[in-house]
């Protein structure tokens, strides 16, 4: 079973039994310093594992970058 989630503004299909940690690791090569928001709420790194996702969840993967 697949479910559709929104990642950084685009729709992605993921396996229903994958938790947030597995989904993040499948999307991002290096997660050092990565900020993960689900439905506008930051999920701390130690809670990624076991955090189940639902159809239509809005996920934001954000990082600090150089800027002026």
């Amino acid at each position, binding site marked *: 079973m697949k479910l559709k989630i929104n*990642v*950084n*503004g685009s729709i992605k299909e993921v396996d229903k039994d994958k938790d947030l940690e597995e989904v993040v690791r499948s*999307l*991002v*090569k*290096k997660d*050092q*310093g*990565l*900020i993960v*928001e689900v439905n506008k709420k*930051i999920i701390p790194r130690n809670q990624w594992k076991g955090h189940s996702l639902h159809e239509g969840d809005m996920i*934001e*993967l*954000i*990082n*600090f*970058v*150089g*800027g*002026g």
Partner: protein
Amino acid sequence: MKTGSPLIIGGREIKNRFFLGTGKFKSKADMKKSIIESKVEVVTVAMRRVDTDRHSENILEYLPEGTIIMVNTSGARNAKEAVRIARLAREAADIDWVKIEVINDSKYLLPDNYETVKATETLVSDGFTVLPYMHPDLYAARELQAVGAAAIMPLGSLIGSGQGLEARRFIEVLIAEIDAPIIVDAGIGRPSQAAEAMEIGADGVLANTAVAAAGDSAAMAKAFSMAVEAGRMAYTSKFIPSKELAEASSPLTGFLFDEKQ
């Protein structure tokens, strides 16, 4: 006027009045070297969505310990978006200094003063140290001061243009009328322009592209730091008035070749 007084923002004394943006550097190592060699104390960073197809690194890991980090709200098109970025930065990394940057125009990248005032008011009441980037307008600056901006950052000229102090006359008005520190941001391309901003009484200068895109970024960062310090020292030392005609600096009597009458 703030002659000779230390620069205090958010309760912290800032010794180096040159602030540096961290965008556009050739490498993170280059950026770090520039910060260390110029002894910059305050830097800006941005927040972006991660490009999942690319390798992405967290810039915070590369900032020397003790650096004051100010998150900018670039990408925000209105006050609400700016507030969201600031809150996210605080929650994610305990960053509570914010440079409000609300831009809705892709050609000139001019800041929206109205939305900037709104975002400043909200974030000050959230407990942030707020430094709004603004178009140098006296009324907007007064509003920003009234709602609690820790410093006000008028643009020198268009972002990234290197045109220098195009807005000089209006920045002078803010320096004369606003008690909050004035940090000139944007458009500063050369150390001499940074020195000019300090000579007219600005409390600091923020630059990014001029350093990051220079041939030798670390040396240029140091040059900017020195220029900002020199300009400040000159400002506090009081200038001579400029004159129409020449005035000799050597005595006008006792010339070696004068004939006694």
